[in-house]
């Protein structure tokens, strides 16, 4: 039996976590501005408020571990090591985008960084992570697969089926539910019975609920789950309780009306995961205000440069619409 402690990943690098969260926030703020100016085609679901989940989870994984994600996936891509410039290029329909303009916001995929796909179908990524975990086990490569999905996705059959299969075969997979307390415009509790963590119990899959706005707590939970998975002990479920500051999608004001109490939004903004980490780092004397300012500036510059690069990149040529259906490789 492998040594559990050695199997678990490294301790959280707080500054790396902070930089990652700020990068995600800046990326999403840019998306918000671009959408408001009519520059972003298609659906855009922002991750602002939930950054600690993506950052904490991905920093607990190895570079060669895999993730799957959902429609609210920009943060996951960045945290797994994605390049914001190629992400913007994708959102703008450019040839240099991750998918050559074919995918867009809901389908950004970056296989080399272990990002096996954001997803437009709620629940769609859960079996894919389960299958990647099977391959990892079968190939004996010690990689772990993690699936990010929302509270809403836990009402899809594939969620339960994946839990069963993963438990049955002790697959190295982590099911990570981001409970942001809404499924589109309806409160989670009006659609989803009981606690999400309880849903793992019948399968004997260990489940934990953590504060999704505490990057350290998320990291610790995923680190343990990854260690478990790598040592052959099978899947885990982690529920991260968090909140999205923005609408379900940008532009929802046109039809959604007011569906969340203002006080609730304010309460969660006061629990900003970035500010929380910053104040801890300040209190602990790890950083001073000037250092924090420098991190913010460098991330903002990085995102602005990424956007500039994407703007200048050539548009995807229209003939590309007809390529990539089948791989020409073969016997």
């Amino acid at each position, binding site marked *: 039996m492998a040594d559990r402690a050695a199997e678990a990943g490294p301790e959280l690098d707080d500054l790396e976590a902070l930089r990652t969260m700020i990068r995600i926030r800046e990326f999403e703020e840019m998306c918000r501005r671009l959408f408001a100016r009519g520059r972003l085609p*298609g659906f855009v679901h922002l991750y602002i408020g939930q950054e600690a989940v993506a950052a904490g989870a991905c920093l607990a994984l190895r570079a060669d571990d895999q993730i799957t994600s959902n429609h609210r996936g920009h943060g996951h891509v960045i945290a797994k090591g994605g390049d914001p410039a190629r992400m913007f290029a994708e959102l703008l329909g450019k040839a240099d985008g991750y998918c050559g303009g074919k995918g867009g916001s809901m389908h950004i995929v970056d296989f080399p960084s272990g990002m096996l796909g954001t997803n437009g*179908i709620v629940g769609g990524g859960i079996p894919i992570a389960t299958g990647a975990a099977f391959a990892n086990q079968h190939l004996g490569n010690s990689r772990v697969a993690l699936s990010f999905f929302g509270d809403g996705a836990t009402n899809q059959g594939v969620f339960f089926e994946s839990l069963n299969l993963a438990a049955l075969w002790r697959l190295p997979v982590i099911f990570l539910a981001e409970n942001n307390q809404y499924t*589109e415009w309806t409160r989670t509790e009006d*659609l989803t019975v009981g606690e999400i963590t309880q849903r793992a119990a019948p399968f004997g899959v260990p489940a934990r609920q953590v504060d999704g706005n505490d990057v350290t707590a998320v990291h610790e939970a995923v680190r343990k789950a990854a260690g478990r998975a790598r040592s052959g002990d099978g899947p885990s479920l982690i529920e991260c309780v968090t909140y999205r500051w923005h609408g379900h999608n940008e532009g929802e004001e046109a039809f959604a009306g007011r569906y969340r109490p203002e006080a609730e939004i304010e309460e969660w903004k006061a629990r900003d995961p970035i500010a929380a980490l910053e104040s801890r780092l300040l209190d602990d004397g790890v950083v001073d205000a000037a250092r924090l300012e420098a991190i913010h500036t460098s991330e903002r510059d990085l995102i602005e440069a990424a956007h500039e690069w994407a703007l200048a990149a050539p548009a995807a040529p*229209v003939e*590309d619409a007809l390529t990539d259906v089948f791989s020409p490789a073969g016997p």
Partner: protein
Amino acid sequence: MGNSYLVTAMRDGLAEAMREDPAVVLFGEDADRSVMGSTRGLIDEFGPDRVRNIPLSEATIVGCGVGAAAAGLRPVIDLMVSSFFYVTMDQLANQAAKLRYMSGGQVELPIVYFAATGGAGSAAAQHSESPHPTFIQQAGLKVVMPSTPSDAKGLMLAAVRDPNPVVYLQEASLGGTRGPVPEGPYEVPLGQAEVRRNGSDVTVVAVGRTVTVALAVAEELDGEGVSVEVIDPRTLHPWDADTVMESVARTGRLVVLDTARQSCGFAAEVIATACTEAFGSLRAAPVRVCAPDVPMPFAPQLERHLAVDEHKVKAAVLRSLA
């Protein structure tokens, strides 16, 4: 006669159906708020017992429709986006479409499954399907696709009154189309095509949003001395072959437009029927204009490249005349 958006007219047809029959119940994700607008306000009139917000469990909801219909209700189920039907395919194709047949005709299943369909606004590959050929293939599902607000209302009422499962597909890009809509309840009968424009040189059969494209091309060609007849089948299964074959017998030329991918699509069916049933009247090879056999890309310029547009349709009509 009021003037109404297509989605509003569809909603009004649903409201008429709910008013006349308390057995009609509506299920949908965020059915109270309604992203697409097709159920907006219904909860105020009919209450949360009959207008139900459902969890993200499409496969189960589609199957619940079968059970609820078998047990005495007339469920109407909003799948929001037609791509999401794929999540439900067992319940739709193996259960809803086949239970009556398999049971030797013991049961009636008055169910309407509806969703916005088709590529529009860079929604990308998983939100832009035009899956109607897949549903036609199931034999036990009627399939309708309105192209005008007035038909949207009348087809909805007819679909809810029909004793069979009906898949009602509302072109996402036509949701905001405005047009005259009669007041009160009325049906547009299932299985009945509408000749949108009379002509004598070529028959154009156009599905969903391509009707508008066909009419624009017909208008333009009229100025060039070509008389185009435009037929909107409205119901894709079972479809009104009589109206189309009668037209082809007069014009001798056939062009079929469809938003779905070309292979094994509705256009293939119409053309095959013309070739087998009206071969003697054909004066030229039929032509089809469909989406190519690729998923819908995200980038606006790529999406536009695949669309059935006026340029492609005009070229197709001229080819049939050459």
